[in-house]
Structures are given as C-alpha cells and as structure tokens.
C-alpha cells in the first residue's frame, strides 16, 4: 500500500506541475503516463512513468524519468503470483529530433522488492538494486501523446544462488505518456 501512496503522490505532483506550467520555459517538457512491462516468459508488471526534459540540457533529446511498476497491477492482480514492486530512475536519449519515429536508449537504476509473505522464506533474497539498459523506439504523434516500446536487460537478476528469483533479466515494455507541460 505504501507504493500505491507513492504513486498517488507522484500523480498529484504532476498535476500540480501542470497547473503551474506557465512558470516553465517553453522548451522544457513533462510527460506522464502508463508503463506496461513484461519479463520474458514471466510476469506482467504495470505502473506509471514520468519523463522530464529540461530546456537547458539537450531539450527533447535527454529525458529524465521516474517509473514505478508492480505485479500488483499485472500478474498478481487477483492471482497467487508474487507481489513485487520496482522503482526506477532513468536517463534516456532520443535520436531524430523533430521526427515522429525516434529510436532511443535508456539507462535505468532503481530498487526491486518482492514480498514472499511467510517467515519461512526469509532465508531467500527478495530485493535488489536495479541497473538495466533499454533500447527502443518512440512514436510522437501530432497530439501530445507519446508511445515508446523497448527491450531491456536487468543486470542484477536472480540466479538461484543470489538475487531475487523472480527478477528476470529480459523484459519488454511499452510506455504511453501524455505531455502535460509544453505540449
């Protein structure tokens, strides 16, 4: 539930930011939306994404992001799948400025935690720092909608002897965001 509260707080911050968008320079942008993520042959983990590009630093090319995904909004919804949450901070570089189809590379870092619920499983690792590069393609429509699909690789996945077993290395994700500042 703490994660839900954090998500809600992020959304509130985004809305407030939208309300005060006049204070931002024209070139800075903020995109807010949903992230759908699936590990290869494993769980769906869905959540939210926030992407920011500042006019002073490679505007519309460099995007700094915050993402929260959880199996609670995916495979564990109404099932016995393990509840697991991931918080990511990212830096993404989008090529082909001004084009609608834009390849990008992204580097994520963050924190993963799985909830095994019972004390008997306390001997198992259930959390990890995340480092994951992504490569993908973004599509920017004429409306402030932006869609990005990518393939990523978790460098710190579990291997049965260390690391959480439900942290898989290869994942695919799709993010659909709406530009709420400087659309």
């Amino acid at each position, binding site marked *: 539930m703490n994660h839900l509260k954090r998500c809600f707080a992020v959304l509130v911050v985004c809305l407030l930011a939208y309300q005060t968008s006049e204070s931002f320079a024209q070139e800075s942008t903020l995109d807010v939306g949903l992230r759908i993520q699936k*590990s*290869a*042959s*494993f769980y769906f983990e869905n959540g939210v994404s926030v992407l920011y590009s500042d006019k002073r630093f490679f505007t519309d090319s460099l995007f700094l992001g915050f993402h929260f995904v959880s199996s609670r909004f995916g*495979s564990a919804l109404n*099932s*016995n*799948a*393990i509840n697991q949450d991931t918080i990511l901070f990212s830096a993404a570089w989008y090529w082909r400025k001004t084009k609608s189809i834009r390849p990008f590379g992204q580097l994520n870092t963050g924190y993963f935690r*799985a909830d*095994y*619920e*019972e004390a*008997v*499983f306390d*001997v*198992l690792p259930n959390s990890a720092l995340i480092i994951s590069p992504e490569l993908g393609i973004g599509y920017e429509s004429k409306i402030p909608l932006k869609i990005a699909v990518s393939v990523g690789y978790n460098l710190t*996945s*579990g*291997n*049965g*002897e260390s690391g*959480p*077993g*439900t942290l*898989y*290395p*290869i994942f695919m994700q799709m993010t659909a965001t709406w530009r709420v500042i400087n659309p």
Partner: protein
Amino acid sequence: MTKLHYLFFLVLLLSACDSTPNISDEFVDGDIVFDASIAHPENYLQSIANPNPTEQDAAKPVFIAIHGYSASTFEWDEFRAFSSGRTDYFISQVLLGGHGMTYDDFKQASWKTWQGLIKAEYDRLLAAGYANINFVGSSTGGALLIELLASGYFDNKIAPRHVFLVDPIIIPSSKMLSIMPIVGPVLGYAVSDNTTAEDRYWYHFRPQETLRELLDVTVRVRKQLEDGITLPAGTTMKVYKSIKDPTADPVSAVLIYKGIKTSAGRTIDVEMVDSDLHVFTRLALRSGTDQGDVANQLRTFSDIVSRGLN
C-alpha cells in the same frame, strides 16, 4: 552489407540449426548406455515386480519416485538403498518418457511424453489393487506432479495420500531458459556440466527442443499455481527446497506454497533446507559433499517415510 555477408550469415544460421552433437558411447545420450529400468523394469516398478499383491501388501504405501529433466531413475537410487530391508513400504522408480535412451529419443519427447509414464505406473498400481500411493518428485518431476494435480488427473480415482517434492522447479535459476524459443533454434543444444560418471545417468547434451518443453511445462505450472490448485481430499503435500540451487530457483517453493491448498483450505508444508545442491537428496557421484549434506539427505528420507507411513 554485401550479398556475400548475407550468404555467410545464412550459412552460419543454417549450420547452427542443423548442429548435431558428437555423442560418446559413454553417454546415456548414445546407443549403448540405457537406463537400467528399461532392461529390468521389475527391479524398479512395483507394478511389474508384484502385479498381484496380497491384500496386506496392497495396503502398504508405495512411493512412486519421479526424477527430473534429463536425469534418470538413478536420481532416486539412494532412496531405494536407504529403504533396503524395509518391508512395510514399496518404492516404484519411474523413468520419465523419452529419458534414459538415445539423444534422438530424448529430443523427440514432449513434456506430456515425460509425464505419460508417471500416469502409466499410477494406473497400473491402481489396477493391481494398491490403494496407498504416494509420490516423491524431484526437480521437473515435481512440476509434472503439480501439473497432474492441477489438470484433474486424480479426479474420480483413488488420490495419492502424500506428495513430496524435492527441489521442484517452477522458476529456473538460469533465466536464459525464458528466451529459449528465440535462441534455441540457433543453439541447437546445450552442453551440461556433468562429470564423466554422471554422463551415464544424465544427458550430456540437451536438445533445444527439450529445453523448450521444459520452459513450456514450467510456465504452464506457474500459471496453474497463480490460478490456484486444490489438492484432492485426503492428499497432503510437503516441499523440501534447498535455499541455494543452481538449477531450480528456490523461489519456486514460494510459488508452490502460495498456489496450492489442501482440500480443507490449509497451506501445504514447506521446509527450506540449508543446502546449495540441486536435488539435495542425490549425493552419489557428487564431489565435495559433506556431513551436512548427508544429514539433509537422511533427515529428508526419514521424514518422507515417516509421513508416508502415517
């Protein structure tokens, strides 16, 4: 890229797809070494050893022992040795379908083929009159047993009394298995890190087709667990899981615990074992085992028998 480059990569891809390993006669993969239960099933299967049990024998527990992917009946030989001299229960060591024979036999078998011989032995025992049947399954044997429970195989039959799972695999430790459908056709096969002695009982070469079957059955069972599985009335389950395991990720035990309930709605039993071995009950042919490993094995065998006799 020139046409020559394309041609080179096409030849490389096709040659990889057509790769056939160089199989030694010393391997179970070859044409000479076979699982011993094929030539002498009466030494392994209770239904063959005694198809006409007395009423007294028919009431005794039978433990059907199921080995894992690419293994053989050897995996449970130590349980039979542990039980030597016991007359109050029987052991039936099932060779999974497609296993214990040639590389090509293994390559062509699906997970349903693997599972088929478990059903065959169970049904033969029931037909012979055995009424107290239990399972002990290791690794993929555990996943295959869970699949039988989830798919309703025991509906309208005498259900197993107890199901014991040793290092069952739901989540593989090597997550590369998850991309086998993509990389498998290029790889052709994987090479195991067996010792020379183990090569007589475990496949040295693992065809990518079988690895994809392994992925299929583990994903299927994971989803069955996510949906929830209820054991037949009167059936219990206990999972014994190494806390470190290079083959079956220990988190597999969490998924089984969350996914299976008894008919009364209770949780199953789980014991996390202080071991870093996969199928820690098999110590034969391993190097570097210690007294702790032996103690784990004996304690688990004793617990299985004790629970099975109750």
